[in-house]
């Protein structure tokens, strides 16, 4: 961060996206493990869940003003961010250990421990749900940010995290058998490609192919309703700052991106998910992911709106930025 920042930037939004999606993937995999009757999600999807959270952590560290001191975020047990950092660490570790159970290598000595799989699924369910929801809790507690404050953000982030997690699981399930089939003739036992086939070949139960799109469609419908209700409540909200902030989403400078998110990132994939075609559902899943990123970028950007004090905005606009031409003039 070499320039002055008074608000969080796009990297935090991307962190929220990857971390939330990873958390959602862990939750879905855990639910299938616990209640799926012996079914498991694809290994690729199970590996990408904790991997997504690692990517999110990377973006979070890059967003810091002092990245080399990043370990300090684990220090204050009262802070939501600290709680989230610990939960994400547990989720990543637990997620990788669980995913590894499906890797066909003797090195993974816990592969056959079925009870461990169930225990890890419970841990993943809890930590994944927290990781999927905690950005909303973090934002909802900031009293000075009218667009965020309140419990609504928590529900919106949880829904989006589960929808994007489900979408990536679906895409992984789509990709795996195709690649596995293509690679099958080239497989030689003991080769790296053979190991890769272990990652690619396991195909999730057919029930997942039917249940997952329906589940994602339900989440998208809830997302559509909740966002509409959230903006309505904010617009007719308790304070003028909340109403002004919501107005930016409805017909202000954020409205175009918000409409794209609602139409292309929510309604279109909702329809596509309900079509009885795998290709349509896959396209819908891609749109869900794009919608998830857009939503988080918009949400983080709306943090620019604050409870400004009288005359403050005008004053701050007049402050020098340090880039003024006269400052760089050679006066001597």
């Amino acid at each position, binding site marked *: *961060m*070499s*320039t*002055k*920042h*008074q*608000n*969080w930037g796009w990297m935090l939004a991307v962190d929220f996206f990857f971390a939330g999606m990873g958390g959602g993937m862990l939750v879905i995999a855990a639910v299938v493990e616990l209640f799926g009757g012996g079914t498991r999600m694809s290994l690729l999807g199970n590996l990408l869940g904790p991997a997504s959270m690692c990517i999110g952590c990377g973006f979070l560290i890059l*967003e*810091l*003003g*002092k*990245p080399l*001191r*990043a370990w*300090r*975020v*684990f*220090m*204050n047990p*009262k*802070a*939501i*961010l*600290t709680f989230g*950092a610990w939960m994400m660490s547990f989720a990543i570790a637990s997620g990788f250990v669980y995913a590894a159970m499906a890797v066909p290598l003797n090195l993974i000595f816990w592969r056959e421990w079925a009870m461990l799989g169930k225990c890890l699924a419970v841990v993943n369910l809890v930590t994944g749900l927290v990781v999927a929801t905690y950005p909303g809790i973090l934002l909802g*507690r*900031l*009293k*000075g*940010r009218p667009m965020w404050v309140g419990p609504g953000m928590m529900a919106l982030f949880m829904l989006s995290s589960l929808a994007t997690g489900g979408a990536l699981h679906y895409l992984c399930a789509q990709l795996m058998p195709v690649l596995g089939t293509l690679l099958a003739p080239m497989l030689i036992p003991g080769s790296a490609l053979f190991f890769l086939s272990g990652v690619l070949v396991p195909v999730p139960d057919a029930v997942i192919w039917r249940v997952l799109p329906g589940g994602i469609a339900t989440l998208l419908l809830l997302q559509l309703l909740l966002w509409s209700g959230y903006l309505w409540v904010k617009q007719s909200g308790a304070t003028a700052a909340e109403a002004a902030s919501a107005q930016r989403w409805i017909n202000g400078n954020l409205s175009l991106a918000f409409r794209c998110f609602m139409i292309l990132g929510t309604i279109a994939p909702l329809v596509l998910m309900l079509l009885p075609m795998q290709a349509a559902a896959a396209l819908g899943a891609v749109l869900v992911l794009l919608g998830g990123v857009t939503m988080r970028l918009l949400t983080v950007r709306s*943090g620019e709106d*604050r*409870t*400004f*004090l*009288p*005359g*403050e905005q*005008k*004053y*701050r606009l007049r*402050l*020098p*930025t*340090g880039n003024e031409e006269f*400052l760089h003039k050679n006066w001597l």
Partner: protein
Amino acid sequence: MTRYAMVMDTRRCIGCQSCTVACKIHNELPIDIVYNPVTTIGPTGTFPDLTLSFLPLICMHCGNPPCVDVCPTTASVQREDGIVHVVDSKCVGCLSCIMACPYGARQHNHETGTVSKCDFCKDRLEQGKLPHCVATCHQKARIFGDLHDPESEVSKLIKNNRTVQLLGELNTDPSVFYIY
């Protein structure tokens, strides 16, 4: 127990920005950082009944500071005397405190990568001096003292005048009071 507080007498403030400049010099702040801006409200009304007023802003050193608990590194600290400050060596520049502060009192310092703010000139207080902005104000619009001492000037001013705390509805319990 001492609780430091400041009273801003907006009837006396003429918007000269002396306090702003004094603070910038004392704290050696970069060009784009101001800890205590003085904003202008107005002119309002119609001629000849026009009014213009000034609002000196500063960190409110809240009794219930939202910026302290959100800090994941314990760099944001509230002292027993009520002063809220940042321990620079612990700050990672995550901006959580900036986002949590409803008063815009915290600034990201792009030169250090950390967050900085007004600390009521705690270094000067330790020497028995007043904060620089208070000592500089030639209109005596800024008054500093112990809120818990009923004989202090700030306590008497708050008791005998109509005062307000900014954004009091957020339950932050600011230590800065405005006479209007």
